[in-house]
């Protein structure tokens, strides 16, 4: 990790900056033909990329341009990964898989509910462990049928997390239906003149 920055003597031109702007905004890897289309002239993209990478190093900018999937893509340098990851692990930033979220939705709406009922709705067996660990759900008792299965429901933390004063503030299925059935508007560009 030696930060030996040397002045490379690269003169940064407007073409460099435009290529940067294209790289920053691009969703797909950037190719020479993309750049030539935008700049309306021939460009030796490889050279510019080489120089930009050198400049980033010189400026201590944590970005790296890489050749990926037949074009150039810009990556955040992994140098500070450990520090960055704290941003995502901070308290309250609960991360869930989509199946956990599905399970949570069922429990929120159907509580108190048994695992068998949850599985029946999802069509696959569900893991409740993560949700229990994150204190989004808790055991509410047992259902009085043979086997006395556990009943699950959401916690106070769940309410807090979504700013609900109580469960009746969850949108009702009927309300959701009304919204879902709204046709999607067209006129993507507005009617402004």
């Amino acid at each position: 990790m030696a930060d030996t920055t040397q002045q490379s003597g690269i003169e940064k031109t407007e073409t460099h900056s435009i290529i940067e702007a294209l790289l920053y905004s691009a969703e797909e890897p950037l190719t020479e033909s993309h750049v030539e289309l935008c700049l309306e002239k021939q460009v030796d993209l490889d050279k510019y990329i080489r120089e930009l990478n050198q400049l980033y190093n010189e400026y201590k900018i944590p970005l790296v341009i890489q050749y990926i999937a037949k074009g150039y893509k810009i990556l955040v340098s992994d140098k500070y990964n450990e520090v960055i990851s704290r941003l995502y692990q901070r308290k309250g930033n609960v991360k869930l898989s989509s199946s956990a979220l599905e399970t949570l939705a069922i429990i929120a709406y159907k509580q108190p509910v048994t695992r068998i009922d949850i599985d029946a709705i999802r069509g696959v067996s569900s893991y409740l462990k993560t949700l229990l660990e994150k204190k989004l759900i808790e055991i509410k008792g047992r259902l009085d049928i043979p086997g006395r299965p556990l009943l699950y429901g959401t916690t106070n933390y769940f309410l807090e997390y979504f700013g609900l004063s109580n469960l009746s503030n969850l949108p009702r299925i009927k309300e959701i239906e009304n919204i879902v059935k709204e046709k999607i508007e067209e006129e993507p560009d507005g009617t402004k003149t």
Partner: protein
Amino acid sequence: MSYNVKLDVFEGPLDLLLFFIQRDEINIYDIPISYITKEFLEYINIMQSLKLHLAGEFLAMAAMLMRIKVKMLLPKSLKNDDEDIEDPRTELVDMLLEYNKYKEGAKHLRALEEKQKKFNNVNFIVNNDDVDPDIFLSNISLMDIGMLFKKMLDHIPKDKIYEVKKIKININKQIQFINSFFINRKKIKFKEIIKNIESRIEIIVTFLAILELIKIKTYSVSQNSIYGDMWLTQLNNQE
């Protein structure tokens, strides 16, 4: 036809009335009701004759205008105390002023949108194992939870009827099938891959094939939101 405008640009009856008021420089506090009713009805007629969709609210507004017109025609002397008589137009004026306020607000928002749209989002790849595109609850709203639940309700698996069929499909075949989509492109939606597949099992095997391809790092998968489309992106292995 006196309308130098596209006929369907109005957001609603109030918008149309405001248009008349501006076009004819009408004092909003003293609207000539007969005149504006005539204009309004004419517009409705044109819309109807052109068979353009007209929201029911336009008809309701036409009724309101005519009601006001009738009230205006009633001689004042018929009612006893002059002081308390409210101008029959007051309610309409209030509605127009209130609506106009937010129309103004919408213009502000449009200006902000245009200004901010010029700043593109950065699309940097974050190569951090702890920062994968998994779902953070902070991006999830109550409505998302509700929608998700509703979606599941709509797709509760039906009772299974077992029908034994020989299936001529395997993962390797589906891998080839998937690869065939990437001849001229680098990114494709999962939905598009399975578009013409009919049986469930084929979809499942196709999905397994995708998992296999992800494992061997031929493709990567990303999703913008929980029920957003799943995108398959070709990775470059020659690196």
